[in-house]
């Protein structure tokens, strides 16, 4: 049995007096038990929509989704005790109540006994480093502290499958690193985690597999290592004082997607094939160009490249 099975899920929103918006256009995805799965995509890609469907708060327009073998539409009572949800951002907590009160309330909603609520909330507050602030109102917390409390709240029900929607939003680098350690511990406990993020580093650090999603379609499901090589294909090289004939020759080299002048006077060479960077650098060095800088594109730029590729195929 898989922890999460998504079969051709479609979700179309029909706002009043506006054209329907397709948030998910036939998404299929399988996540085995115990896997940390990253869902990467820009804003509006459909990540949160998918998480909401899996967490039973949104109905799909078509398709089927199962959590631990239970249908998220017809078997909500079976699904809900198995899942924990952590939506990112400042919302999702009762800010005028203390951290402890928040956890106790959610523990009661997950049908824990009084003793379980106490022991689990104490343990979770300790785990996310909020023991000293447990009785302080949440409105006095920093954004990062709220995020940690979000995570503790999501774990109150001892969920087998966790949906973390951009959980490190607002965390400082140190807290984000601790969070990644925590994800590792949760995985060690056999929990399945679906993590949505914009952050490539985070995805590579904690995920067993990563799904790239854009405009409601899955572009690829890869291991982070494969994704790394995918991104490295789209490397770019910024050069200064390169002779025009050398640049012209590079422009027609296989694997070079563009050569363009930048506002600061430098020239940017973009490649879209593995190995092309090496060829370009070799030519530049042979031509005596010494001011050269290579960099990786942002995730969004990779999407643009990938969608372009898919567009040609389709």
């Amino acid at each position, binding site marked *: 049995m898989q922890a999460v099975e998504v079969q051709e899920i479609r979700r179309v929103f029909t706002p009043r007096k506006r054209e329907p918006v397709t948030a998910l256009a036939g998404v299929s995805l399988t996540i085995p038990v115990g896997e940390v799965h990253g869902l990467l995509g820009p804003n509006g890609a459909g990540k949160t929509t998918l998480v909401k469907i899996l967490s039973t708060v949104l109905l799909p327009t078509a398709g089927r989704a199962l959590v631990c073998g239970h249908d998220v539409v017809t078997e909500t009572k079976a699904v809900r005790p198995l899942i924990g949800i952590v939506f990112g951002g400042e919302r999702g*907590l009762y*800010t005028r109540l203390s951290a402890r009160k928040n956890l106790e309330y959610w523990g009661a*909603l997950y049908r824990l006994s009084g003793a379980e609520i106490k022991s689990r909330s104490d343990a979770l507050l300790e785990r996310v480093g909020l023991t000293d602030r447990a009785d302080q109102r949440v409105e006095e917390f920093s954004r990062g502290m709220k995020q940690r409390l979000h995570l503790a709240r999501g774990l109150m029900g001892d969920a087998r499958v966790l949906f973390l929607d951009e959980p490190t939003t607002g965390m400082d680098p140190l807290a984000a690193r601790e969070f990644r350690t925590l994800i590792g511990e949760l995985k060690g406990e056999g929990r399945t985690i679906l993590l949505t993020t914009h952050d490539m580093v985070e995805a590579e650090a904690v995920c067993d597999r990563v799904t790239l999603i854009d405009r409601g379609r899955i572009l690829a499901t890869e291991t982070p290592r494969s994704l790394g090589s995918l991104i490295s294909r789209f490397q770019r090289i910024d050069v200064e004082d390169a002779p025009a004939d050398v640049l012209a020759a590079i422009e027609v080299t296989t694997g070079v997607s563009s050569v363009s002048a930048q506002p600061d006077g430098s020239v940017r060479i973009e490649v879209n094939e593995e190995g092309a960077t090496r060829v370009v650098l070799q030519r530049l060095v042979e031509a005596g160009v010494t001011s050269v800088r290579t960099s990786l594109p942002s995730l969004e730029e990779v999407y643009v490249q990938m969608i372009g590729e898919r567009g040609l195929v389709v």
Partner: protein
Amino acid sequence: MRAFLAGARIQLSFFRAYPDALIPFFTAPMFSVIFQMIFKHAGRQDLTGYAAVAPVFIALWWMALFNSGWTITIERWNGTIEMLVAAPSSFAAVIFGRITTTTLAGVVSFGETWIVARLFGTTIHIEHGWAFLATIVVTLAAMAGTALAMASLFVLARNAVTFSNSASFPFYVLGGILVPVSLLPHWVRPISSIVFLSWSADLLRAGLRSTPIHDFGFRLGMVGFLGACGLGVGAWAMHVILRRVRGTGELGTT
């Protein structure tokens, strides 16, 4: 039951966090003074019962109705409503627990209203103590049940607070809580008879008079019946409306 109790407990915490939910405790005595003075100086001591009962009903109904709208709105603003729906406990039971706690807290307005009335020279006597007490208990249950039905509608409304605020007044009129239903146009009376407030307000006022209460059992039964209808409709409507907003994607929309 656990969900109901969880809702009740969190509501007690919310009273401390959001004291504005207890505004009726300040307004009810003021209404009491105003009504007492008007009736007293108009020479209508026979309407003392109305002046005593009306502020209490205004406070109770406001707390039940306004807080049911407020509860839904706060959950939306907090971004917690989706997580509440996704929790294993029944959303309707949690909300019902919160509304019931609020309604029970409204009982305080009985005491303070009558204390203030006394300070202003009016003493209120309860002539039929047990009937009065039974009516209060059934009224509170009916109020909580009816407020659940309203809360389910508020799930549909974007700004439930505004709606719940203005929705109070028609019930004050239809419930005959200050102006007797007998003084309203004839066509209003059938509508009034399906509003439990009209039955319970009449019974409470009857409990203050020395004359025997006629058809007490039937009238109390009507309060209970209409309240149970509200609870049943509320639970059913909550189920249907939650399914609808899960479909439209408007559950968390603020």
